[in-house]
């Protein structure tokens, strides 16, 4: 016992070497998946991807067994699971009170949040690449079973806009985690934002002709859908950027301020 507490580590440690950001990112990635809930969330990404592929083969009409169909079938559930991963990676520090350790080991909270955001984006991109590969396999297997022609109708540009759209979903989760700092609260708010709010906007647009024109500029969910439905026009990109500023960047800045100033108990 005595020797263990007093012996310095064999390789001399530079006590004044600051912790590099890359190391914080690796730690945050590890923390995302080394809990029971984290493990099953990651597993659910793969399970859902496989289920969606099998489902598409069984249900979709033969002439629609194309790469695009598979990619869309896998991509949709991911837009639900990825934001949950992003939310929990942040809210866990408060809901599970691990922030007490995290923010004393790295006493710059902004840095921890940057690392968490990078880690979430890395997971998001990796998940999209997995979806792409599963989609390829599904397309080959599916068309072989149905005996139809292989159709590769998913362009690189299209895949790119789908990735951007999914990352916007994921970052919305990051934003809500910072803003609310409570797992159930942030999860409920996420589903209100993505399910309830667009419905309200839809009802409003149906009854108010004026609002129908404005809607794509304020309805983040509608604007994001342009990214999933084929090449967006210049105006649509503008709408994506505007809604992202309104519903993502501004609240994230408020959330960042909360996180940096709040007391960790």
């Amino acid at each position, binding site marked *: *016992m*005595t020797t*263990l*507490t*007093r012996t*310095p*580590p*064999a*390789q001399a*440690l530079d*006590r*004044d*070497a*600051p*912790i590099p950001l890359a*190391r*914080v990112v*690796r*730690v945050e990635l*590890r*923390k995302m998946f*080394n*809990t*029971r*809930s*984290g493990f099953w969330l990651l597993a659910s990404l793969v399970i859902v991807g496989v289920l969606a592929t099998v489902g598409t083969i069984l249900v979709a009409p033969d002439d629609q067994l194309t790469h695009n169909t598979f990619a869309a079938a896998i991509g949709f559930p991911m837009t639900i699971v990825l934001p949950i991963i992003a939310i929990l990676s942040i809210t*866990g520090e408060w809901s*599970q*009170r*691990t*922030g*007490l*350790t995290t*923010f*004393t*080991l*790295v*006493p*710059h909270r902004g840095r921890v949040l940057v690392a968490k955001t990078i880690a979430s984006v890395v997971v998001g991109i990796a998940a999209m690449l997995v979806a792409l590969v599963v989609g390829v396999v599904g397309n080959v297997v599916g068309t072989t079973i149905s005996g139809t022609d292989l159709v590769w109708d998913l362009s690189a540009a299209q895949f790119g806009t789908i990735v951007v759209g999914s990352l916007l979903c994921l970052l919305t989760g990051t934003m809500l985690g910072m803003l609310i700092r409570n797992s159930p609260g942030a999860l409920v708010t996420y589903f209100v934002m993505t399910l309830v709010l667009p419905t309200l906007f839809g009802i409003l647009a149906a009854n108010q002709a004026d609002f129908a024109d404005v809607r794509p500029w304020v309805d983040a969910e509608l604007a994001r859908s342009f990214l999933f439905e084929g090449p967006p026009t210049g105006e649509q990109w503008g709408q994506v950027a505007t809604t992202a500023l309104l519903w993502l960047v501004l609240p994230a800045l408020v959330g960042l301020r909360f996180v940096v*100033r709040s*007391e*960790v*108990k």
Partner: protein
Amino acid sequence: MITIDNLSRTYGSTVAVDHVSFVAEAGRVTGFLGPNGAGKSTTMRMIVGLTQPTTGTATIAGRRFADLPNPGVEVGVMLDASAQHAGRTGREILGIAQQTMGVPARRVDEMLELVSLTSAEADRRVGNYSLGMRQRLGVGTALIGNPRVLVLDEPANGLDPAGIRWMRDLLRDFADGGGTVLLSSHLLREVEIIADDIVMIGQGRIVCQGSKASLLRGEGSVARAADARALLRALHASGHDATVTSDGALTTAAEPSVVGRVAVEHQLALTELRAAESGLEDMFLELTANTQRDTRRERTVA
């Protein structure tokens, strides 16, 4: 060394910590005592930057905690052993700390051995740990970076007697090696045994501080004699006030040297003679009397 200078924290109109200043010296164990809600934990959170002070500063070897490039290798911190993700294994919790600090991976196994957690226990999720096991894990996390300063909030909480002894030896050893230990507790007996210096707070203010030896030194002496009645008469005859307690010991305001001389003069055999000590508990209750919840209630009732 931890230097706390004029540290305060207010919440609205409530003053949690009120201009607290003290120094926890290297090579010594400083016990931070106070009733529940006295401001111990708030002070400790301010030291490590989890709570922003309203006034004042806290520095570790001259640097603010947030200015330490890699705090984990300078300061071992355990503020709440239960503040861990229930779904994570003990080994992973140590692994995260080890990876963040950039110390060798073997430190994880070394710490498990140090805090006496078995390999099987380390692979269990912390949600299944007893409070004592969490305390051990928390101490392991605090020590993994081989720091020179320890800040521990209620480290003996939930430990069994053997665990308390182990913790005491570990902290003594750490301080004897030149380390600084600041620990809070309301387990007075523990602090009385382990601490070299004591800082006592009540309602956010320091009510007393100093070395344990100087704080506990009482006035007068306690004596036992083969014939207690004879000693009592002899002391009275010499002009000293004295009383015999129910267990046969004799207490007096006279110093031990005076009692010894009186006994020799009267040819009385002493079986015990020592300076009276005021117990930490008495001092604690006396000094924090007007800040204790229970006495406050009594006063309002009256």
